[in-house]
């Protein structure tokens, strides 16, 4: 299983250095919100992995090797968390290095959004035949990220009840509730992908 997670690193080592770090630097220098930086940077590795898998007949390769379908899915979901932590760590280091202020809440918020987005989109890759899914999903992501930022910045005006609720609820409850929602969504998505993948004809 560890081998399957390591596979992404082998596949994407060039990509990591040439794209992720410059992207992170760009966002940091342009003073983007730390939560947005974390969200955007986290997206790269898992979706780039899907992009590679779409091009090659990776599903046939992996399933011909001594792996079970359950393991293949598990490695995708666990690997996503592992790489997210790495990339988030890297982003924090860069933020500190450039003397940009950020809070743990920003990072948690960005990571949470990313995991929700991953949970909602991963099963799509297992339902449909490979094609140009990655591009579709990345476009949806950009819309999601931009509109998300606009909504959050204008939440008082757009959704007064929601903002009242957030203000009136204690931080602990808010964080715990948020974490519970994220984890539940992610696990449900994992289960759904496993069921879909086990029935899939390759």
């Amino acid at each position, binding site marked *: 299983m560890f081998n399957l997670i*390591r596979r992404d690193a*082998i*596949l994407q080592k060039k990509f990591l250095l040439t794209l992720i770090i410059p992207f992170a630097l760009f966002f940091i220098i342009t003073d983007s919100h730390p939560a947005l930086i974390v969200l955007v940077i986290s997206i790269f590795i898992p979706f780039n992995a899907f992009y*590679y898998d779409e091009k*090659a007949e990776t599903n*046939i390769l992996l*399933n011909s090797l*001594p*792996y079970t379908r359950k393991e293949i899915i598990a490695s995708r979901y666990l690997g996503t968390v592992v790489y997210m932590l790495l990339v988030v760590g890297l982003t924090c280091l860069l933020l500190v290095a450039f003397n940009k202020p950020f809070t743990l809440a920003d990072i948690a918020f960005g990571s949470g959004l990313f995991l929700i987005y991953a949970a909602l989109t991963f099963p799509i890759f297992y339902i449909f035949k490979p094609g140009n899914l990655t591009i579709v999903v990345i476009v949806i992501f950009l819309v999601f990220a931009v509109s998300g930022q606009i909504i959050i910045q204008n939440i008082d005006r757009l959704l007064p009840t929601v903002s009242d609720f957030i203000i009136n609820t204690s931080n602990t409850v808010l964080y715990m509730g948020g974490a519970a929602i994220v984890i539940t969504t992610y696990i449900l998505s994992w289960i759904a992908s496993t069921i879909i993948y086990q029935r899939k004809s390759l």
Partner: protein
Amino acid sequence: MESVIELKGVKKSFKGFYIDKIDLEVKKGFITGFVGANGAGKSSTIKMMMNLLKPDHGEVKVFGLDYKTHEKEIKERIGFVYDGNVFYEGLNLKDIKRIVAPAYKSWDDDIFYYYINRFDLPVNKAMKKFSKGMQMKASLAIALSHHAELIIMDEPTAGLDPIFRREFLDLLQELMVDNNLTIFFSSHITTDLDRIADYIAFIQDGDLVFNQSTEEVAENYAIVKGELDLLDRDTEKAFVEVRRASTGFEALTDNLKLVEDTFGDAVVIEHATLEDIMYYLKGRIQHV
């Protein structure tokens, strides 16, 4: 005789095509050639052997084990070569080895590098820059590097030049000297199979027509040529398919003995190649 692969009553339907109740045993220690026209169901059958596709009915056993409970154990012991390149095309062989090798408990780097040298393959060049022949050699090197007991290949010789095809077939024969190995490979190039297969499994339109040793095929199947007046409702029963021309008939029999008893010296009997068999059986289906 022990079977390495067993398909029992395997059915699978697709859009506009189905595999109909295949029973197939692949004998241990031999080369079985899996022959059929394009679209006959070869790749789908192989995918079911690899558990890439699940049959709608029936069971698939490899090494006597079931995929439901022993998927990893089974795949640990299989080497595979597919028609297309299933490896990441942007990666070089060294990186592909780093991905594939740890998947197998019994991966052997010495064997891998032995074949890399023997096949003259560059380890630092991206797979997409490989020719079709080199890609096949690379797949084969990977398939042979983990002490597999069963090698399953889907159209490994398609798109290869004749010289390399010959070398490839020689290599397979060389591998068979090592007693324990079983090779199952599909091809629509029948001369490849004539040359090296011990058993021939013949599939047509999703039906397994026969699975016999090459000797049995030679004993049973033949091309028969003779005068048209020899044919009547009874004598035609000896044939699978008859083609008539003004000068006489040519027919395929799957019962050479019956033909010899029925016609004696009145007909000319010739050896039927696999291509002949495929050609005549194809005709039979079109007539019906």
